[in-house]
């Protein structure tokens, strides 16, 4: 029995801010103080507050330390763990009150959240199946195998209203019922863990923090549709997730949650991992299955849908990680419980990866129907440096931008589509007034041009042409006809592409044209970038009245574009200037402007 548990985040976010070194330092320091038998160190998954990593929570006090460095460890050990005096200096500032510490659930970041899919993330040790079991792990699988028929399982999932969390929002129960309908000697259950949207890390965090939930849910899906084999398709760029899932699969086999005759029910199920090399198109269901089969990851036309002819031409079900993470709780707590959360057509919660110009970068889970304002202003802690909110991008390269006027729209599948964006897998990138919308559209299109697999013409050539038009606009070389051409091309690509990648690729362009047309027009007609981002359209100037002639800018200019005598106003030679902004950064008198 340990008198204290120290939980340290070992997710990718905190690992990259140095949590592994913190754990090393802690283990050494505990040994030095002869405390290793009294205090247990647990490496958990993501707590969500990635901006403040590495994160450390000490129980039984529940003290939440943020941005812990290895140098802080001796103080935490000698003061807190040995003498019981919490090191207030290192606590997450919001939890510190005059004489006591607030519990984490009461901080702005966590108060409005509701953790269903992330229930165990940051709570349990993901590399120890016993901790998952302590939190009701595998109870749902046991219940399904001993008390329910496959049809009852499917009916429960249908009644819960769960929809696919990978982006399109297809009803999960319905998908399972299709695959269950087809008789075959072999069926498959697959998991899409090929999270490819720039800025999205929900699935990775679930795999890193609670890998067993995926195993349990996939076994349940296997029972429901009559499959005995599952595959998790996960990108090789997620080494921590792959490692933890491998450990979990091994432990689950040893405990008999995978293998033959699970729970003495006669049901057999096993699971294997297939690594993807990070091609965005492999997140598309038919391309993903083709890739598992060992072929080049390219989509194929549907129908036949995977429920009829999927992996190896057998009936298959494919769901996203977050979708699966909801399944065990729906079984244990009932479809009514799940259906009571969220909006009329979108039930349950949704995990968002908050990124961009926001104070609390990290992972949040909120009930469907929460407004964007709540997520950005309350949970996200607003926008840094007092800047103004301009737009939020959801759905990554397949989604669109939500402008400030729609901040109060309750977020669910249907509302997002109505305002020209989409749920996507849950990446949520916040943009402030310094963001150029043409530049953003160009960024996402550059991504899809790179990631287009090249199989169908509309996507392969169409996205490239769209990118060229955007490039012209951002360089001030476009005419108004180009904007119409862009719009026409976008609709053509949407209607004629083979798979979801091409069908959604124009969305970032269409939604930015819809809400920020004036910015496009400013680029085209006035040859001006209102946000001051597009380099070709702006110039640096020195204000003669403010320049003191200190020569600092001239000395820092990497191309020698600034000239002038000491104590006299300087001048920038525009033909030499590369617009790097070094002079503006260095100037102590605010004499340099760009417009």
């Amino acid at each position, binding site marked *: 029995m340990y008198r204290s548990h120290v939980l340290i985040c070992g997710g990718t976010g905190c690992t990259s801010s140095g949590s592994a070194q913190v754990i090393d330092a802690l283990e050494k320091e505990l040994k030095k103080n002869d405390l290793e038998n009294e205090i247990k160190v647990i490496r958990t998954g993501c707590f969500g507050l990635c901006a403040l990593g590495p994160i450390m929570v000490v129980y039984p006090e529940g003290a939440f330390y943020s941005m812990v460095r290895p140098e802080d460890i001796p103080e935490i050990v000698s003061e807190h763990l040995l*003498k019981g005096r919490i090191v207030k200096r290192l606590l997450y500032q919001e939890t510190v009150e005059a004489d006591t510490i607030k519990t984490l659930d009461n901080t702005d970041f966590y108060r409005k959240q509701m953790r269903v899919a992330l229930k165990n993330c940051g709570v349990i040790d993901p590399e120890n199946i016993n901790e998952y*079991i*302590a939190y*009701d792990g595998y109870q749902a699988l046991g219940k399904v195998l001993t008390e329910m028929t496959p049809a009852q399982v499917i009916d429960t999932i249908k009644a819960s209203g769960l929809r696919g969390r990978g982006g399109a929002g297809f009803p999960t129960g319905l998908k399972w019922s299709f695959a269950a309908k087809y008789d075959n000697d072999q069926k498959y259950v697959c998991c899409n863990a090929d999270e490819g949207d720039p800025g999205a890390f929900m699935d990775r965090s679930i795999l890193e923090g609670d890998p067993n939930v995926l195993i349990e849910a996939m076994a349940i899906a296997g029972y429901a549709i009559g499959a005995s084999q599952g595959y998790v398709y996960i990108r090789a760029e997620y080494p921590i997730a792959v490692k933890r899932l491998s450990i979990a699969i091994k432990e689950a086999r040893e405990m008999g949650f995978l293998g033959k005759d699970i729970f003495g029910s006669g049901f057999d199920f096993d699971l294997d991992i297939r690594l993807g090399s990070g091609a965005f198109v492999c997140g598309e269901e038919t391309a993903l299955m083709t890739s598992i089969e060992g072929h080049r990851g390219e989509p194929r036309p549907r129908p036949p849908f995977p429920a009829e002819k999927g992996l190896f031409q057998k009936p298959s079900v494919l769901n996203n990680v977050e979708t699966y993470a909801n399944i065990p709780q729906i079984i244990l707590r009932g479809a009514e419980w799940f259906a009571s959360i969220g909006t009329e057509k979108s039930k349950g919660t949704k995990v968002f990866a908050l990124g961009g110009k926001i104070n609390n970068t990290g992972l949040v889970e909120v009930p469907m129907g929460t407004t964007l304002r709540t997520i950005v202003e309350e949970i996200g802690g607003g926008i840094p440096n007092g800047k103004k909110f301009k737009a939020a991008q959801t759905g990554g390269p397949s989604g669109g931008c939500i402008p400030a006027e729609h901040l109060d729209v309750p977020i669910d599948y249907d509302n997002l589509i109505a305002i020209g964006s989409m749920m996507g897998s849950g990446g949520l990138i916040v943009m402030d007034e310094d963001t150029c919308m043409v530049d953003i559209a160009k960024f996402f299109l550059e991504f899809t041009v790179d990631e287009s697999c090249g199989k169908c013409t509309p996507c392969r050539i169409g996205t490239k042409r769209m990118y060229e038009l955007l490039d012209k606009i951002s360089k001030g070389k476009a005419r108004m006809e180009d904007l119409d051409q862009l719009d026409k091309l976008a609709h053509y690509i949407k209607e004629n592409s083979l798979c979801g990648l091409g069908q959604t690729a124009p969305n970032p362009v269409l939604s930015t044209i819809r809400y920020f047309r004036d910015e496009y027009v400013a680029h085209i007609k006035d040859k001006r970038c209102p946000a001051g981002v597009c380099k070709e359209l702006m110039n640096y100037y020195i204000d003669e009245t403010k320049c003191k002639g200190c020569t600092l800018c001239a000395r820092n200019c990497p191309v020698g574009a600034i000239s002038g005598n000491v104590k006299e106003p300087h001048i920038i030679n525009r033909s030499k200037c590369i617009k790097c902004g070094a002079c503006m950064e260095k100037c102590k008198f605010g004499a340099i402007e760009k417009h």
Partner: protein
Amino acid sequence: MKSLAELQALRDKMKNNMGIRNDDEAKARIVVGMATCGIAAGARPVLAAFTDEVSKRGLNDVAVGQTGCIGICQYEPVAEVFMPGQEKVTYVKMTEEKARRVVAEHIVNGNVVTEYTIGANAK
């Protein structure tokens, strides 16, 4: 894993080991003074005895923690017991045996061990 009952037994056992990670407010708390004075007077074995006894009895809603010096160094080792809705009780000059008795009588049965309290020992 052959039956749901087997899984539930395993869950209950594992839950015991993780009880201290609950954030629930309503639970008994035992706090041992672990400043220099406390440690010098032998607070470490007392703390270990509390932890051990609580765990042996499977009291997973009881937290054992430590605190700094509360200013009565001559009475160390000092342990304080906080029960929901009751005033805290301060035990002084604790030993391992006394710690085990406090768990049995005070935490489990709700009877304060008066003879160990500061009131009985103060002169």
